[in-house]
Each structure stands twice: as structure tokens, then as C-alpha cells.
């Protein structure tokens, strides 16, 4: 029986000829990731282990991105704990304020994640690197600790769902709309424990930033990982960003899939997930037929949508326009490099002239940490990844998940709007 792309990567890293779904394996890790929230718990655990330091100082990445620049004393204590651990163990890829970015925007940009890797991260959106043809998945802090100590992790080999993407999306339909459409179709547990393998000739029309957004939200469908095949777009990205050698795996022709969906990208519309689950999706056409939904805040950023393509789309819509009176618009470039590129391309000027604020990279508002927490009864259109109860602040606040284009258009009108309404 053939293997899926994910199964092939896992087999190679477990030193096995082949694996089957459901098999428990122990795999070698190419990278272990943690952030300022999950790493302190992992460091506490690794201190209990009878190990001498970490397995490889170059294969651990510690990114201080969630509550940074530190929002309060307790957060500062957490970062101090991680900083001291990184210093003591001579961790090469420790990223603090000034160098850091939002972890899943930063690591591919730094060339630390390439095709064929097996990566675990104590952050659920670690699945992002599947965009580059790696197996990567989120774990908790104890798994991170064990990974840092041993360079290995146990996995149950997943079965897979195949998503065949065909056709060319229209101008304002982005990776975010593709993944929200899929989550709306299969539900927040539609891919529970499974790989989401994306294939098809429509992928050629998806930029690397689009693919990173799609793989990023595989977890929002319950998926263990999301993964794309390697093409010239992937190779060009890795050549530009990494000095590491990569390995290209592809699914066997006779690989088995639990389910298969065909999605014609040319038929997709801008899509918004209503509170309080990412599966509560509506197309912009459906929303236009509803009573208007007034908003209080817009957030454009996060590990899902804080990359250059995202900022360019938002700036194209906001250029020469003003944000609606009373709407707070917060724009957060994903990394220092993206921030600088956005300044040099004139995007930051566009945002500030429109009345938005532009922040240093941080996960901040996505999880209700800081830099844009909502009050009771407030509504936000956000390019982030979760709209659970209380996610961005008060338990009675609401988050609508959307693409950067929809978020930017909504910033201009003060209600949930598609880009066509303002362009």
C-alpha cells in the first residue's frame, strides 16, 4: 500500500521503510520550537529530566512573541526565564525583542524550516511549515521539553484527507478564503488527528504567503498537519531564505485517503467566519444580503496573515482612503523584515495616513493578550485564526475572521464589507 506525503516524511525520520496509519513511531526531529508562553513550562519540565543540556543547540528555536514587548511583570519574568535558559544552553536560534517576529512568520523567513523536515513546536500553529513541504505539528510544553532533551518525539502516524485545488482564484480571494471555506465545509473537527494534504493544479496560483496561511489553519479543522507538494514557488522561496539542504517527498500514486474533496478556487468568494467558531463561515454575498454588521476594531496581522502579501492587499485597498470614524485599526507586520519592507514600499505610510496604527511584531491581540483587547459587546474583524468566546478580550466580545482584503475594506466602511464595495 502506498504512503501519503506525510507518512513518507515520518517513515524516513523513524528509520523505517514504510509506515501505516495508526502506527506508533518515534521520529528524529529537525527543529523544536517554543514561545514565551509555552517555553517556561517546558524549561521547568526539562529541569526534572536526567539529561545534560539540549540535544542540539542549532535545532531549537525560542521566539519571544506572544506577550512581548512584555506587557506586565509576570510576562517579563517568563521571558527572563527563557532568556537565561537560552544563554545557559547556548541556543543559536533565540529571538528576543529586536530580532524576533511572530514565530510562524519568522522561522520560514530565517530559513530554519525546509521541505522534508520533521518539526514540533509548543504552539498549535506550528502546522504552518507544511506550506514548504515539511511535516510540522503543534505539541504541548512537555513534548517540547522531551524534544529539546532527546531530539525525538512519538507520533501516531495519521491518515489523510486529500484536497484537490483546481482553477484560479479571483483577485481578492486569498489563501485565507480558501482555508475558511474548507473549515466551513468540514467543521472544526473535520480533520481531527489527520493530515490535510493539498494537491492540484490550482496550487500554482497560490503564493507562498497564501500557502503558509492555509497550512497555518489546518489545526482549526482539528488537523495534525497540513502539507503542500513542492514546486518551483517552494524551491525559489527556500533558495532565497535558507542555506539548508532540503528533501522533496511526494505521495505515492496509490496512497490511501480517508476522504477526497475537489475545490474549484475560481468559484470561491471572500469568506468570513462568524463568532464563535472558525466553521461558522459565510461568503461576502451572504453577508451583503444580511443586516449590516457594525464593527469597533480591525486587526490585520498574526501568524496567519501578517506577511507581505497580506499587508500589500490591505494597503492597496486602504490607499488614499480614511478608516471609518470610531474604528480602531491595528496593523501588525509579522517580522522585523516584513516591517522594514512595508516601510520601504510605502505601505506603512498608507496605513498611518488612513488612520491605522502600525505595531511592532507581536501575537498580542490575537489571543487577547495586549495591543488591542476588546471590551464587553465590542466587535472586531480580524485576520487572525480563532474566534472562540473571549479570545480577544471580554467574554461578551465578538471576533469575525477574515482575509486582509475584507479586514481592510471593513476598516474603511466601519462594517463587515468585501473589497469590491470600496474599490
Amino acid at each position: 500500500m502506498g504512503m501519503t506525503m506525510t507518512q513518507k516524511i515520518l517513515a524516513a525520520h523513524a528509520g523505517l521503510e514504510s509506515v501505516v496509519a495508526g502506527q506508533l513511531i518515534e521520529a528524529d526531529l529537525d527543529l523544536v520550537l517554543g514561545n514565551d508562553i509555552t517555553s517556561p513550562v517546558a524549561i521547568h519540565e526539562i529541569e526534572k529530566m536526567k539529561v545534560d543540556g539540549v540535544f542540539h543547540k542549532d535545532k531549537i528555536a525560542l521566539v519571544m512573541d506572544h506577550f512581548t514587548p512584555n506587557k506586565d511583570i509576570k510576562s517579563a519574568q517568563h521571558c527572563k526565564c527563557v532568556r537565561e535558559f537560552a544563554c545557559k544552553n547556548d541556543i543559536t536560534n533565540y529571538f528576543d525583542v529586536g530580532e524576533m517576529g511572530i514565530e510562524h512568520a519568522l522561522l520560514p523567513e530565517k530559513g530554519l524550516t525546509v521541505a522534508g523536515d520533521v518539526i514540533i513546536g509548543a504552539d498549535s500553529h506550528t502546522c504552518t511549515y507544511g506550506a514548504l513541504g515539511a511535516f510540522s505539528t503543534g505539541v504541548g510544553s512537555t513534548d517540547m521539553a522531551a524534544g529539546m532533551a532527546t531530539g525525538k518525539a512519538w507520533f501516531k502516524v495519521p491518515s489523510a484527507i486529500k484536497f484537490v485545488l483546481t482553477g484560479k482564484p479571483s483577485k481578492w480571494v486569498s489563501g485565507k478564503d480558501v482555508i475558511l471555506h474548507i473549515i466551513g465545509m468540514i467543521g472544526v473537527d473535520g480533520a481531527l488527528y489527520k493530515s490535510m494534504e493539498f494537491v492540484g493544479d490550482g496550487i500554482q496560483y497560490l503564493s507562498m504567503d497564501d500557502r503558509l496561511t492555509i497550512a497555518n489553519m489546518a489545526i482549526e479543522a482539528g488537523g495534525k498537519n497540513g502539507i503542500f507538494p513542492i514546486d518551483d514557488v517552494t524551491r525559489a522561496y527556500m533558495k532565497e531564505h535558507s542555506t539548508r539542504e532540503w528533501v522533496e517527498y511526494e505521495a505515492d500514486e496509490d496512497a490511501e485517503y480517508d476522504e477526497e474533496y475537489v475545490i474549484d478556487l475560481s468559484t470561491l468568494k471572500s469568506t468570513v467566519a462568524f463568532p464563535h467558531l472558525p466553521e461558522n463561515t459565510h461568503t461576502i454575498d451572504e453577508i451583503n444580503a444580511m443586516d449590516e454588521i457594525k464593527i469597533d476594531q480591525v486587526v490585520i496581522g498574526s501568524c496567519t496573515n501578517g506577511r507581505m502579501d497580506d499587508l500589500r492587499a490591505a494597503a492597496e485597498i486602504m490607499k488614499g482612503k480614511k478608516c471609518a470614524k470610531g474604528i480602531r485599526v491595528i496593523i501588525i507586520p509579522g517580522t522585523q523584515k516584513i516591517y522594514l519592507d512595508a516601510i520601504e514600499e510605502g505601505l506603512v505610510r498608507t496605513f498611518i495616513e488612513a488612520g491605522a496604527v502600525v505595531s511592532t511584531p507581536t501575537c498580542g491581540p490575537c489571543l487577547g493578550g495586549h495591543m488591542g483587547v476588546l471590551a464587553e459587546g465590542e466587535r472586531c474583524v480580524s485576520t487572525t485564526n480563532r474566534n472562540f468566546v473571549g479570545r480577544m478580550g471580554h467574554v461578551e466580545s465578538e471576533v469575525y475572521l477574515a482575509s486582509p482584503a475584507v479586514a481592510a475594506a471593513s476598516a474603511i466602511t466601519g462594517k463587515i464589507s468585501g473589497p469590491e464595495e470600496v474599490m
Partner: protein
Amino acid sequence: MKAAQGTVFKYGDNVDTDVIIPARYLNSSDPKELATHCMEDIDKDFVNKVNEGDIIVANKNFGCGSSREHAPIAIKAAGVSCVIAETFARIFYRNAINIGLPIIECPEAAVAIKAGDEVKVDFDSGVITNVTTGESFQGQAFPPFMQNLIACGGLVNYINNK
């Protein structure tokens, strides 16, 4: 493994880690402090009512969302002896096993058991007994690899014993 027995707190589908332990409290990693905010955004009374040994029962996809281990840590530190659900989100499932919070998948039990019922869980056999109604259910027992992990007292001890 010791059997769990206690009074049931019942929740629905997709109980996410943001309601189990809201991110505004993640500036702490102290189990005792996290426990004082456990389930706060879905059930404000939970921390006042929960007693040592009580059991959480929920429907599909319990623990979805963030990878924060603070979620099972908060539940365990609040005194909960077991979580029963139709299904668990995969990261929560790993985390619970790794920190030694007993969890068990059993769709029939998750649907039938009601809030306030007294429930007993025998982990060796996977049998869940509703002491209040007299019903019993066969839950999914852990595969041998995970039983070994749990028997060692979690992943840290498992690695130390290797």
C-alpha cells in the same frame, strides 16, 4: 491506575482551551494559580463548586484550539480526576497524557451522563459506571505504549526511566 470517582460537570461540543484557561492568565505557569481560573469563560461557578475527584464530561473535540499545556494543568490542579468526552482535540490529548491527567474517549457515556451524576471510571478495564443511574459504558482503553507512559507517571519519568 487508580479508579476515578466524583460528581460530573457537563459541557457540550468544542470546549476550547481559551475557555478552559483564558490567555489573559497565561502570564502565569503556576498550577495553583491557573486552577483558580479554570473554565472561567464557559462556567464562572466551576472553581467554586468543584471538589477533589470530580469529573468533567463533554461532547466532541474537547480541548480544541491552542497547544497551551496550561489547560490540562489547570483542570488537574483544580482537582478533576478524569475528563470523559466523545472525542478530544489531538494536542490536548497528548498534553493530558504527558502531564498525567486521565482522559477517556467514550461517545455513549459522553451523551448519556448528565451534570450532577456520580460517575466512576476504571482505567484498567475502560469501564465507566454512572453510579446515579446504574448504567455502565465501555470506554476506549489506552494502547500499551500510552499505558506505559501513564504508568511511568508521564513523559518526563518515561524518559528518565529509559
